[in-house]
């Protein structure tokens, strides 16, 4: 009896938190992050063109976004070099690698399994680094990181905002990451106005990369 009451209370709490966070995300409740001096900013460098795009955005950020915690897929040999070049005059950053959640051409079914494996690395990483902001632009590598950040926010363990920037490649449709994060990220930025018809919650800020 006590146990089932407890279960109901926990489920009720989670549903209430989910409702509140979703209302924040969809803009029905104020969602501006509480002001603080510095933001621990976790940046998921998705490999290839994704890394190039996100670094261009990171380079333009003001001095508040510090330290910068880069997350890369362990099979990605190029991104650490690109990040080091981009952070050349800074020692205010670190790089963490996690197993890739989805390789190009991998099927959706096995992607679920590899995403679970990847999540096993992300949950402790996010709990340890406690980012205030997760910045990502796909592909799949960012999903488990965002899941972890979202869950900790739900559980009131760490308040965090997720910002997803859809790749400039996406002209007519959102990526799989974009379609998932449409419901988890606080802000979804698209780079072609054509997408706003299908995804009205997204924002178009002009060409940003």
């Amino acid at each position, binding site marked *: 009896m006590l146990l089932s009451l407890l279960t109901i209370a926990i489920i009720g709490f989670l549903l209430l938190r989910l409702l509140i966070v979703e209302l924040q995300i969809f803009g029905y409740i104020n969602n*501006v992050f509480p002001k603080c001096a510095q933001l621990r900013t976790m940046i998921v460098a998705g490999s290839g*063109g994704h890394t*190039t*795009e996100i670094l261009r955005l990171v380079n333009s950020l003001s001095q508040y976004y510090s330290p910068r915690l880069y997350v890369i897929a362990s099979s990605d040999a190029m991104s650490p070099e690109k990040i080091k*070049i981009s952070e050349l005059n800074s020692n205010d950053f670190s790089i963490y690698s996690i197993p890739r959640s989805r390789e190009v051409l991998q099927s959706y079914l096995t992607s679920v399994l590899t995403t679970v494996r990847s999540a096993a690395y992300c949950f402790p990483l996010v709990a340890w680094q406690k980012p205030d902001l997760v910045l990502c632009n796909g592909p799949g590598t960012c999903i488990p990181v965002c899941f972890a950040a979202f869950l900790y926010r739900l559980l009131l363990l760490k308040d965090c905002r997720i910002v997803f920037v859809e790749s400039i490649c996406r002209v007519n*449709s959102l990526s799989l990451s974009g379609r998932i994060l449409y419901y988890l990220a606080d802000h979804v930025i698209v780079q072609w106005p054509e997408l706003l018809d299908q995804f009205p919650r997204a924002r178009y800020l002009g060409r940003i990369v």
Partner: protein
Amino acid sequence: MPNVFATVGTTSFDALIRRLDSPELHKILCDQLGYHGLVMQIGRGDYEPVAHTARDYPLEGRFSVSYYRFKPSLAADIAAAGLVISHAGAGSVLESLNAGKRLLVVVNDDLMHNHQTELAHRVARDGHLDTTVCVDLEDALKRLTPVSQLKPFPRGEPEKFAKFLDSVMGFGDGD
């Protein structure tokens, strides 16, 4: 005259490198378009260019060919090129356009979820570059849009993103 730089990005695009590894194609680049060399970034591809090493290579001394797999930054090779032949990846496409280069994008038909073509075709529609597929590469080179008719690609403005982020993260004046 400058070089032609071909890039396949972080993955592989053997079909393109095979097409580029042809003395006939080098002749088009050299004699018709006036470039004096070809540098190829071949990524993880299995195929390595050999045509230029043949003893009877017809452009010996007139057209230099070289290749490599990866470099941390392609900026120098892009800067040195008069024409970039690129896969449709956003990084390479944008880097070349932002460097103000004449660009031919070769779309890889073999990729299953080929959303990459969206960007190249969208930007081509605005007149900033040419696109083709592997089998049509030679024809596409022969009818490249003249540099004078390509529209310059406007610069992206990441500072707009920075301003937006400041406003939602509690730093902005919210305007």
